[in-house]
């Protein structure tokens, strides 16, 4: 009579939960209702395994946990850690290694798991039931931890085995502990940052601030990574470490010190301080987090509140470009729409702004690196301005995300409205991306490059812009196979099209090399520019 009942009972169990069962005693000691927590986790993992199909491609339903399916890409990225496992300069090598690990864990924590941490729907479903809030919170943390463990294992698994063979069992065990510490640290630090913001803001403002903090965190991870690399004198092959006061604030260096103490037996005061920090801070953070949870839960409610009047956003910039680069009326409407979506979609900003920051910073990092080998004068005379091609990396990131929206179901309007040719929407959306995001980056970089390299790079800059428009159009074509702008859910975004994204990054090199080669011949730049111009006209016609 009740076939449902049967289905519920035979519902498959998760391996991760079976592993968790082994730690049952620990939870019960902490007064957590373990069976209840397990039940909650089970449902959450089940939901993660079922992603929503998109509205226009009803037939093509993707099943299975998309996050787990994307792990291989982390495993692949993990291979870059291997070079740091050879040699005995542990403080240097392991600090770099841990900054990379921290960077990866932190960015994925911010972009993929913030929604879990800040989930308000949980409240409606779980907090109305007779469950101890402590259990709900534990479930939340464990839910994220399970994924962090998967991610870490995928990312550091192969390097760890290499380390085991290379440096022995002690190294392996120390690594396991340190990776655990750094995971706890990242998880809790992110949570504490959110807790702090939630105290001071509410409503839409709060969501904006969280968005900016998320962007800021991911940018600072990029910068931090550079700082760690720079705190060692890499050029001199005998790497020397001198302690600076700000190293106490760099967690990767704490762990580097631990390795140096254990593996090389170096014991001195600074190392002891750094190593102690590495062990004590995660526990302190954990204690602080437990203490702050109640107020966190209370303040989470603020995400739902709604505060007063808002002013109209000014967008003279987009109006200007609407007049400059958009002709047809319907295209203008899509242009305005896309520009506003780019401005307002928080998920979009979160996924794209960090790469914009990199696009702005990396050209200069390349030049600064070059300063070690040559003088500023030599650089000004040379070809280093080709480093500006690095800013192209914001294009695939930005274009790919144009498919998604947090409210993708609103896309019914594309079909319900009298649109004669939907291709207009594609061109307009890409133009809006250019006007809103790429052109500003381009202008800033161009200005600084003109100052550094003098006006002789002006033809280069024009050629670069022409390349960018061709490149973006190719990216768009590759990423938008069938989808319409803003018509798919961000939930399916994270693991999709990683192959395409890598391919597009490789294509940047090709564009740069062609330009570089053209630069060698006389009239090369002019021919290069003319060809690009013709290609542009052809591919932007429709």
């Amino acid at each position: 009579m009740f076939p449902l009942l049967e289905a519920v009972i035979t519902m498959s169990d998760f391996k991760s939960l079976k592993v968790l069962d082994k730690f049952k005693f620990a939870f019960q000691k902490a007064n957590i209702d373990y069976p209840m927590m397990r039940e909650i986790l089970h449902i959450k993992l089940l939901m993660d395994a079922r992603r929503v199909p998109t509205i226009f491609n009803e037939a093509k339903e993707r099943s299975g946990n998309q996050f787990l399916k994307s792990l291989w890409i982390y495993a692949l990225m993990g291979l870059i850690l291997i070079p740091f496992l050879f040699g005995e300069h542990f403080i240097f090598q392991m600090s770099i290694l841990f900054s990379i690990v921290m960077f990866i864990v932190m960015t994925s924590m911010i972009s993929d798991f913030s929604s879990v941490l800040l989930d308000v729907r949980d409240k409606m479903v779980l907090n109305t039931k007779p469950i101890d809030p402590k259990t709900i919170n534990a479930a939340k943390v464990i839910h994220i931890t399970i994924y962090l463990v998967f991610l870490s294992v995928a990312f550091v698994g192969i390097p760890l085995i290499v380390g085991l063979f290379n440096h022995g069992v002690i190294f392996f065990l120390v690594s396991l502990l340190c990776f655990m510490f750094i995971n706890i640290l990242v998880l809790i630090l992110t949570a504490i940052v959110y807790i702090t913001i939630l105290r001071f803001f509410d409503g839409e403002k709060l969501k904006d601030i969280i968005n900016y903090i998320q962007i800021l965190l991911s940018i600072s991870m990029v910068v931090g990574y550079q700082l760690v690399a720079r705190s060692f004198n890499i050029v001199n092959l005998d790497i020397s470490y001198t302690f600076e006061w700000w190293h106490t604030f760099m967690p990767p260096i704490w762990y580097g010190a631990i390795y140096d103490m254990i593996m090389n037996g170096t014991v001195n005061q600074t190392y002891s301080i750094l190593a102690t920090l590495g062990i004590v801070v995660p526990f302190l953070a954990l204690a602080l987090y437990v203490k702050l949870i109640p107020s966190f839960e209370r303040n989470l409610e603020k995400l739902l509140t709604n505060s007063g009047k808002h002013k109209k956003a000014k967008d003279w910039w987009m109006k200007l470009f609407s007049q400059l680069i958009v002709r047809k009326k319907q295209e203008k409407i899509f242009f305005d729409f896309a520009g506003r979506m780019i401005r307002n979609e928080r998920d979009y900003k979160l996924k794209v702004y960090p790469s914009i920051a990199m696009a702005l910073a990396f050209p200069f990092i390349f030049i600064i690196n070059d300063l070690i080998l040559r003088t500023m004068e030599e650089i000004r005379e040379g070809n280093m301005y080709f480093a500006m091609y690095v800013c192209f990396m914001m294009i695939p990131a930005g274009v790919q995300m144009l498919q998604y929206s947090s409210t993708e179901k609103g896309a019914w309007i594309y079909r319900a409205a009298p649109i004669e040719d939907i291709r207009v929407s594609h061109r307009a959306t890409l133009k809006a991306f250019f006007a809103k995001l790429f052109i500003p980056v381009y202008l800033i970089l161009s200005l600084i490059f003109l100052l550094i390299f003098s006006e002789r790079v002006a033809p280069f800059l024009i050629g670069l812009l022409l390349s960018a428009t061709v490149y973006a159009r190719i990216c768009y074509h590759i990423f938008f196979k069938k989808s319409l702008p803003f018509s798919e859910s961000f939930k399916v975004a994270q693991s999709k099209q990683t192959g395409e994204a890598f391919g597009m990054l490789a294509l940047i090199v090709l564009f740069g090399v062609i330009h570089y080669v053209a630069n060698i011949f006389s009239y090369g730049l002019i021919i290069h520019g003319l060809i690009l111009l013709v290609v542009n006209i052809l591919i932007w016609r429709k």
Partner: protein
Amino acid sequence: MCKSDEVVLSIKNVSKSYGATQVLNSINLEVYKGQIIGYIGPNGAGKSTTVKMMLGLITEFEGNIEIFNHNIKTGGAAYKSRIGYVPENGEIYDSLTPLEYLSFVGGLYGMNNEEIIHKTSELMELFDLEDMLHTRISSFSKGMRQKVLIIASLIHNPDLLFLDEPLSGLDANSMMIVKEILEQLANQGKTIFYSSHIMDVVEKISNRIVLLTNGEIVADGSFEQLQQQSKEGSLEEIFNQLTGFDQHKEIANQFVSIVRSGDNNV
């Protein structure tokens, strides 16, 4: 009431199936100018599917649909500029503000910007939302969202309206306003296709009721006609009778007894 013989919408032998399941089974329907059609039926009867077909959200089906004498399969998208639509679950790009969203929608319907801004601000004011013009829709309550969607469906002064549960989330006062708006629009010759599960409202506002069940039209006529045919008093009862449902008491009894069955464990 100003009703005419002008056919606004005609559905001829329309069928639709998803794989093996037949959702619509050869439907025929002619709708005249100025009618308010209460389009009702149990969940899964195919109501939303029909509406989505007429809007062009679903493009593959058998049979023909003509709107304003244009076959929608072959006639291009222009017919859509005379249609307004309120989707059933309040789906909207909610990271935009109402003004931004309505500028987009109005623009797609070919309106110019001044007209949109002007109409939007006045309509929003009538719905008591004048302070919210520049606030993201994501922070709106269900009723406020619904008001924005209603404005979005009417801003271009369409001749044919498809409303899917348009009153959901609205408070009693706003409901009265919207019902009155619909009546006045119909009096001025607009045609309204109204689907809902709230029978009292359908009974009151529609001048023609179409009942769909299992992909077929089982009743079509004014409320009085349906009353005479089925010898039942309210639309709710007519609905029960025509959809062959008479077990609500038994099911409720069983439901309550299952709910209570755990009591002796406590």
